[in-house]
């Protein structure tokens, strides 16, 4: 094994993407993703059983495709890594079982790793080694977390997270209220570009007592309710709903809270860097506002390209490669899939 540049295959199946990535050391070779999002769109949201069925169908073809595109043979690999949690239990199990089968068949070490830690680690293959510590804001349909990351392979601390809906969930729900398709994020982003911020929607957990008790936590369910009430009032009054303005105002409220708290966390934790990951990181307004607030605060902003922000196998391979490089012990072959794995537990 080439210890300096381990070749790692990473598998990610925690939600609706079947992801297989190949990383050599800190270099991304390939990121193959099969998404079942079209299947879920018919249901208006991710259906766990639909996701699990798709994972079983796509698992081996996606492994094959990743290797073919990278020109890599399975026998060239040095290690396997896999998301062992958190996520949808039935989906995780498909990836974990497949990763074990690879490790067992090929006689390779297996690393069961945390999905959220992988979202942080992926930036290594995009922008180089992570500054220590980094503050990471992870926002998607499944998570909204603010993390302090002294060492992505061994030490991650939770500063705060959502106390109700995930940020991406709020986008999906508001999209439904506005008659926009699932997944809501990209559609709201697009609509908002044609709109103006005309409505002052509430910023959850940002005032007085809340900033003491929930300093780095988020809450989006009140915002979602405020949006649907506002829309309803218009409809009852027989007035047209200015979809693009509502989208822009809602998006502004979400992005304002996310970036304000993230920059505050960097200041208070003495972190010179903010990393943003997760599907919502693709939001153009989030990127723009984070950039300007980081510039004002003298903080370096790191956001991987959109394809590496959403769930993918490359991020799992990236973290697996770090585990090998830092000499961490491999996981045991009886490791479980842990749907509620805490972010502080980086490996199982």
């Amino acid at each position, binding site marked *: 094994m080439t210890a300096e540049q381990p070749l790692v295959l990473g598998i990610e199946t925690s939600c609706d993407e079947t992801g297989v990535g190949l990383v050599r050391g800190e270099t991304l070779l390939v990121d193959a993703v099969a998404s079942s999002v079209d299947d879920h769109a018919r*249901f208006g949201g991710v259906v766990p059983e639909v996701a699990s*069925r798709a994972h*079983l169908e796509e*698992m081996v073809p996606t492994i094959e495709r990743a290797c073919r595109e990278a020109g890599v043979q399975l026998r060239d690999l040095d290690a396997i890594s896999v998301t062992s949690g958190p996520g949808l239990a039935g989906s995780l199990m498909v990836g974990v079982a*497949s990763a074990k089968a690879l490790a067992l*068949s090929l006689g390779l070490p297996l690393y069961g790793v945390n999905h959220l830690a992988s979202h942080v680690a992926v930036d290594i293959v995009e922008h180089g080694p992570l500054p220590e510590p980094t503050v990471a804001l992870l926002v998607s349909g499944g998570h909204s977390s603010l993390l302090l990351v002294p060492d992505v392979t061994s030490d991650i601390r939770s500063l705060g997270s959502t106390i109700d809906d995930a940020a991406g969930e709020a986008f999906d729900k508001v999209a439904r209220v506005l008659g926009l398709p699932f997944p809501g994020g990209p559609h709201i982003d697009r609509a908002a570009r044609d709109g103006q911020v005309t409505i002052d929607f509430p910023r959850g957990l940002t005032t007085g007592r809340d900033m003491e008790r929930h300093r780095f936590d988020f809450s989006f369910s009140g915002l979602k309710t405020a949006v649907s009430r506002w829309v309803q009032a218009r409809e009852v009054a027989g007035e047209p709903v200015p979809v693009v303005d509502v989208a822009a105002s809602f998006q502004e409220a979400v992005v304002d809270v996310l970036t304000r708290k993230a920059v505050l966390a960097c200041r208070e934790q003495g972190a010179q860097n903010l990393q943003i990951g997760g599907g919502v990181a693709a939001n153009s307004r989030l990127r723009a506002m984070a950039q300007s607030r980081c510039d004002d605060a003298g903080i370096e902003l790191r956001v991987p390209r959109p394809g590496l922000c959403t769930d993918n196998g490359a991020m799992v391979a990236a973290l697996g490669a770090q585990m090998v490089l830092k000499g961490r012990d491999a996981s045991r*072959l009886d490791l*479980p899939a842990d749907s509620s794995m805490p972010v502080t537990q980086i490996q199982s």
Partner: protein
Amino acid sequence: MLILAIDTSTSAITVALHDEGRALAERTHLDARAHTEWLAPLIESCLAEAGKRPSDLTDVAVGVGPGPFTGLRVGMVTGLTMGHALGVPVHGVCSLDALAAQAATLVEGELLVATDARRKEVYWARYAVRPGSVERLTDPAVDRPGELPDEVRALPTAGRGPVLYPDLFASPVPVLDVDAAVLARVAVSRILAGEPMPVEPLYLRRPDALTTAERAAR
């Protein structure tokens, strides 16, 4: 032909290595909720006991259900991935067929296999057992046990159906869960006969969710 057989469609997580008509090693763990944890270590210890390496395998056979979905998929994706990694063919066997083959030494004539489908239902199929052959007479199906015709429920019945619904199945056969050694034997005979053995999960139920169109139509 060194074949690895896996089944996770019943309460048993079961693995066997089979070579030249006999089982070299077998491991079974009863736990319907811990397939992910147990399966790979069971395969590893089976190989170790037989003194074989994964690369010695020539074939993989896997039970394709019907069975509770989550556990079923763990076995199937394990078999499919091992087959791919080792470059050997993977063969699918209906798990009820394995149970029927297990019961065949105890029954003559018609046989019913009825397994736990949860939600107060059973997966089931009818078989004809003759000396030297077991033939499936009906496609695998999922139903409430009380909805099966009386004459079907009266047949000698293998699987956990009679354990779960003792009042509804009159003549239980003491074969409860799939035994991978028997599944391996069934697979070998089908491979030799050149039968198609697709590795397609037998879910028999669609996902438990309504599409937005269906919700609107309600």
